[in-house]
């Protein structure tokens, strides 16, 4: 039986009609709201490609039912920044050319944002540990770590959060 679920995505209030309330948040983002920046990687909560923030906590959206986000606030890669107004993380990733195929980057950027929100001055080890929930198969890890360090330094100097 179809249901209506109301929640907030990237600051915008949305209502979606879903066939049942076990529909994964990832499917709602991609197929109902056309927010395809959050990628499907495994559907098993193992790879981190689909990580979004739910009330500022990084969560693998493939494993969360839409019912569990009713009334809550979701942030996806589309809400992080835009080419015109990039988040310091996006800017640093561009400057460090921190990407190869790029499929993992949406989830990594969101994980990194969650880290910097709770720890503005992480060590390299802390960044790596925070990103251990995200897989990167191309081997771009070191560039990504450098980019997160750079963004953290900028944010501490007063860049936009």
């Amino acid at each position, binding site marked *: 039986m179809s249901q209506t679920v109301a929640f907030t995505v990237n600051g915008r209030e949305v209502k979606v009609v879903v*066939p*049942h309330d*076990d*529909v*994964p948040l990832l*499917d709602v983002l*991609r*197929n109902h709201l*056309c*927010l*395809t*920046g*959050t*990628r*499907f*990687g*495994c*559907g*098993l909560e*193992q*790879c981190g*490609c689909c990580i979004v923030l739910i009330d500022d906590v990084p969560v693998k959206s493939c494993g969360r039912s839409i019912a569990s986000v009713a009334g809550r606030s979701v942030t996806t*890669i*589309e809400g*992080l*920044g*835009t*080419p015109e107004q*990039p988040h310091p993380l*996006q800017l640093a*990733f*561009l400057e460090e*050319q921190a*990407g*190869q*195929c*790029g*499929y*993992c*980057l*949406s989830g990594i*950027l969101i994980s990194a944002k969650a880290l910097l929100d709770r720890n503005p001055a992480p060590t390299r*080890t802390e*960044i*790596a*540990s925070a*990103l*251990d929930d*995200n*897989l*990167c*198969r*191309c*081997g*771009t*890890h*070191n*560039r*990504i*770590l450098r980019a997160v360090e750079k963004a953290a330094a900028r944010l501490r100097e007063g860049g936009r959060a």
Partner: protein
Amino acid sequence: MTLPAVLADNPRLDRWLDFATPERVELATGRVELGQGVLTAMTQIAAEELDVAIERIILHSGDTDRTPNEGYTAGSQSMQAGGIALRAACAEVRALFLDEAGRRLGCAVAELAVRDGRILHKGAETPWDYWSLAPSVNLMREATGTAPPKPRTDYAIVGRNAARIDLPGKLFGAAAFVHDMTLDEMAHARVVRQPNRGATLGAVDEAAIRRAARGPIALVRDGNFLAIVGDDETAVEAAAAAAAGHVAWIGVERPSALQQEASWLVQRPSIDRVIGAPAPDSAHGQQSYEATYTRGHLAHASIAPSCALALYRDGHLTVWTHCQGVYPLRAALSRMLKLDASAISVRHVQGPGCYGHNGADDAAADAAAIALRMPGRSIRLRWRRQEEFAFEPVSPAMVVKVRATLDASGHPVDWTTEIWSGTHQGRPGGGATLLAAEALPNPPPIPAPTDVPEAAGGGATRNGEPLYDIPAKRIVHHLVPETPRRTSALRSLGAMPNVFALESFIDELAERAKQDPIEFRLAQLSDQRARRVIERAAAMANWGKSEGRANRERAQRAQSNRGMGIGFSQYKNRAAYAAVIVELEVEESIRLLHAWCAADAGLVVNPDAVINQLEGGIIQSASWVLKEQVRFDNESGGPIDWETYPVLRFSEVPEIAIELIPSDSDLPLGVGEATAGPTAAAIGNALSRALGIRIRDLPLTRERIMARLLA
């Protein structure tokens, strides 16, 4: 000047370049973006040769309707073969425009130049540019190879870092991948996979599958091909996840645990060849040495499962795919669907990094097979994660036995590399079949076993011959047709296990001769470019000195088992040279501390992208060596997810320093696969120096290390 081979295959200049859009250059390349930055590099090459700003170039890539046929984007050939073809085409087009401008202006071509598409005469502006001249310049002609490319001393774009043109979209959440594409009237689809060729589909409990879907779905069944299709992806996925429990298959074969280790290959029937020097004269009575190295099957383990879209409308099939070769796939689809190739368009759209032949072609075939049965509906077919792990072709396990006769100083004078392997050539373009074709009625015959020919770099034999100065070298190749899983190309093909074997063996010989491994190598290596990368890597790593420090530290802390090791190769013995040095520490398992790499890639188009590729190769190879093997002895009978097939994570990646050796060559050498073999060998050699034990079987897991330490 002879035409580069790729240009000779695609000689029509209008196939490569088009000036119909004012102020823009439309450029077509048969190479496709796999995350390696090839589109950016091609743009740089064209901008350089045509003297236009990078921003003016609109690039079309991998589209059977409009781009040259360059076969596969594989084998680190994009720059080495595709880049120089594009360069020659652009040089010739530029020359044709200058001829026309000279005619209009009544001056010698030598007095003309181009600045951002504008024609200059003796440095001054003229009324002419590419776009105003375009109507009078006929590009519907074949390249002749008469226009020399720019001398590299004039380069302003090639050789300088250029930002990846595809990266911004990927950082801002754009619909960058084929997975993100939507079409009108789009249905989602999954296949219920035939477990193996020859397995037949029995009873299907449709009602149970529909109940699991919790939404409307349709089943498409033809022979042993079964697919689930519906408007709602959630319902289709739920049905597919449940389907395995509601479908009966007859004639299911599963790989056995016995077939898991490479050593299984040695007793199998094989097709045998000897390449290189005649058999050694065994009468010499010199000392000899031999050792056998193995590596298990590896998965590509792309970060996401394969996906494709297909639409069959008005007798024409269009397929959107992240495969590596749109033309070979079109030919394979044509055979499978009995549809003329002219009625099929195949378009490349980016996907997650594939590193070789993964499920991409098969997913495209699945989508096409469904689309043909549902005309007018666009079909989005995505594999499931479990499906990608269980059904993508894997890199074959290999056994590499090295035998050498040694001179008095312990250096090899006669060398044999004996290789047992399944094929590395399972691509549809090589005659292999698509999974859907095996499941549909009247499956094609099983193709005859072949491997990649040596002219294309070899498959199992790739890098089987050492580059060292050895009077007699040969390869004995046993191609084993029977493999527990379908096998095909993975980044570097046989080069990774071969270089692991060769470079481990060289270290073992150095140890026997009580010589430093680097000095031992250099004593038998006359190729100057090879010597330079080894010497440079040694200097970067502070080889010798730093190890002395590690030794002192070890003496201080008895528990510190640190070691450094080196690995070297010239990829395919004709692409980029790379030396990698690794420093690691072993407790119960290996912790990588540092890696240093020096590489000579000849003419480098985009240095930052080359470094990114070399580093990615080091990390991926480290992951293979430390963690990866397709195992058949677990509950699922093979890998199905990231727990049954773990890969290296952020916390496990070493610090890496990479330097490119400056080169005055004007030919690029492929780099994408150059560090895979050297890294594997460097880790094995470092482990040996850290612990004093040699482990010749990959992966170098904690279990293997512990077993050897306790033995």
